[in-house]
């Protein structure tokens, strides 16, 4: 039934806004959505179409695509290194738009762009949003634009039917959780106070955090930061509506960049199986 829904959405995509496509990802699904993260331009922009296809082939439900930034202060070592490598390999926003213009029109999954705020300002926020929406991007995640500063950008994304995804953290006060109820798409739940990165163990209170968040915000909740293994994904997936895996996937690509697409499919497939197995044992038995 999930697949049928997916087909219907894909088929009618041209008439759906980014927010609607994200809503469809989370609507009436039996298991948590899998949202892998890629650093755009790693190993290089030319391979981005293959990598996006690889994520879809592995069973991803949506994609988070990171715009490399010189000073990514919410990212741990793995994503910093990938961004540095992508910039060294010549990443530019114009290059990214050219690839997305070509690819997203026929791509089956909604793509959410994660970018720090300065590249948005450097291009001009209206122009950036216009360009992203024109390319078919479903939403934006801006890790250094807290909700208290976000209203002007949100007006622009809403005009184009894109989601500006609010973030919530374990130390977010009740007032913040109340404010983001008016957000679009989903809430990005940051599982730890900390930066992105592979961790041996899930934060002990992550499931409680996820359910507290779901109750408070009235939007789908995707949990990210520190979710690395299929088993961890499955555990979080028992509560969360979506699971974001970033550093673990990017680290795997960095270990074998020549076979990045195969690595991506293999990794995503293992995560997807674990999520569909549900209840936390899935990852261990495979």
């Amino acid at each position, binding site marked *: 039934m999930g697949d049928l829904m997916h087909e219907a959405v894909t088929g009618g995509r041209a008439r759906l806004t980014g927010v609607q496509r994200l809503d469809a990802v989370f609507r009436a699904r039996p298991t948590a959505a899998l949202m892998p993260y890629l650093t755009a331009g790693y190993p290089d922009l030319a391979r981005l179409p293959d990598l996006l296809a690889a994520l879809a082939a592995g069973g991803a439900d949506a994609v988070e695509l990171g715009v490399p930034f*010189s000073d990514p*202060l*919410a990212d741990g070592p793995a994503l910093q290194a990938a961004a540095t490598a992508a910039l060294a390999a010549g990443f530019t*926003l114009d290059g990214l738009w050219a690839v997305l213009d070509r690819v997203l029109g026929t791509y089956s999954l909604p793509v959410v762009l994660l970018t720090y705020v*300065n590249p948005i300002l450097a291009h001009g926020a209206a122009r950036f949003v216009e360009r992203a929406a024109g390319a078919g991007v479903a939403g934006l995640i801006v890790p250094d634009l*807290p909700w208290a*500063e976000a209203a002007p950008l949100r007006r622009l994304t809403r005009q184009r039917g894109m989601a500006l995804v609010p973030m919530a953290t374990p130390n*977010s006060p009740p007032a913040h959780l109340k404010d983001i109820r008016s957000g679009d798409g989903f809430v990005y739940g940051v599982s730890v*106070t900390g930066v992105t990165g592979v961790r041996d163990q899930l934060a002990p209170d992550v499931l409680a955090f996820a359910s507290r968040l779901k109750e408070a915000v009235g939007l789908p909740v995707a949990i990210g930061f520190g979710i690395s293994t299929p088993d961890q994904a499955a555990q979080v997936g028992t509560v969360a509506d979506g699971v974001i895996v970033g550093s673990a996937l990017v680290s795997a690509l960095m270990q074998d960049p020549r076979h990045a697409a195969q690595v991506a499919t293999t990794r995503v497939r293992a995560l997807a199986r674990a999520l569909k197995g549900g209840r936390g044992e899935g990852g261990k038995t495979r």
Partner: protein
Amino acid sequence: MGARPGHAVGVEQPEGLRPRGRGRFGPFGGQFVPETLMPALEELEQAYRAARRDPAFRKDLAQILSRYVGRPTPITAAERLSEAVGARVYLKREDLCHTGAHKINNTVGQLLLARRMGKQRVIAETGAGQHGVATATAAALLGIKAEIYMGAEDVARQALNVYRMRLLGAEVHTVTSGSRTLKDATNEAIRDWVTNVRHTYYAIGSVVGPHPYPTMVRDFQAVIGREARRQMLAAGGLPTHVVACVGGGSNAMGIFHAFRRDPVALVGVEAAGEGLDTPRHAASLSAGTPGVLHGAFSYLLQDGDGQIRLAHSVSAGLDYPGVGPEHAHLASTGRAEYHAVSDADALAAFHELSRLEGIIPALESAHAVAWVWSRRGQWPAGARVLINLSGRGDKDVEQVAAQQGPGAPGGGGSDGRSHA
């Protein structure tokens, strides 16, 4: 160096940002940090507001400033320099502060606040190491654990300051990410703070970062201007010009603030490095564009995609690709003017002040001296120029000697610019 005052005049509010509000200087400033830090900034703002109203806190701070830091620092009438440039020149002697620079004014204030907030651990970023040393010093004084982030490049260049910090009981973390300098040390300190936010206090070293830091650091440094204004009045009247170097801009804001309502020209001097027409400079206001770095909307060095460019200055303390948001505002309203001085001219001024006044200035402060020097013979009659001598140059002597050779210190007099 070609002056480009008023470059920033009339900057328009960029679309996509709130026009004003909490922690803004005109459109500049704000809080551009991960959501995790928002509760910490709120806690900090409340604690700071309560502390500044608390007589006990103010008394503790005043006592440390007088009995430990050595305040008030004097102003010195620089007789021979005055004669050479053709204006009455006064030096505000922050070089005489304990640890040798103005940075300590801020760290004793912030660490007293950290102690009051019950934080067990303090982190800081440092470039040349002056703020790191000042943080380690205040931490030793107050019995707080300090950990300092410093780029690998700077650790290699400033080995003596690394040793000083360790001697003072601080732990120094070498940062190897990105450009391995101050900007990356700042990123790493912010990452640490995001991770350990519940029990860690982040002591920022300049008037940069998210609100309330630019205001709070300015307030702690404003003692410089309060003293200097009183001292100038006692020495015959207000200055006509107040001149200070600007990297992040804390010594400049510190001395400007008390004069903001006076008929006094406020002059900030940035580092033009090898020239504003080259990529190797650190002049964010003179040659940068507006953007967000390290939590605040201000002027910065960036490319067309908003990637932060590397800064360059012979002076490590000015080697930063951003500037405090209140300076961006003062530039945009025209209340202050900003100029830039090259490495070569700053080095020449380093020699001139040493020879003329027996004061070896920090290379940072030498930029302010160099701008005053560049106007020699052109000062209007009655000009009274107050330079903030933000630090002493002992830390720079080895670097200057290595660059110029110990046997040939700078040549003699006004045209002795031997720096290649």
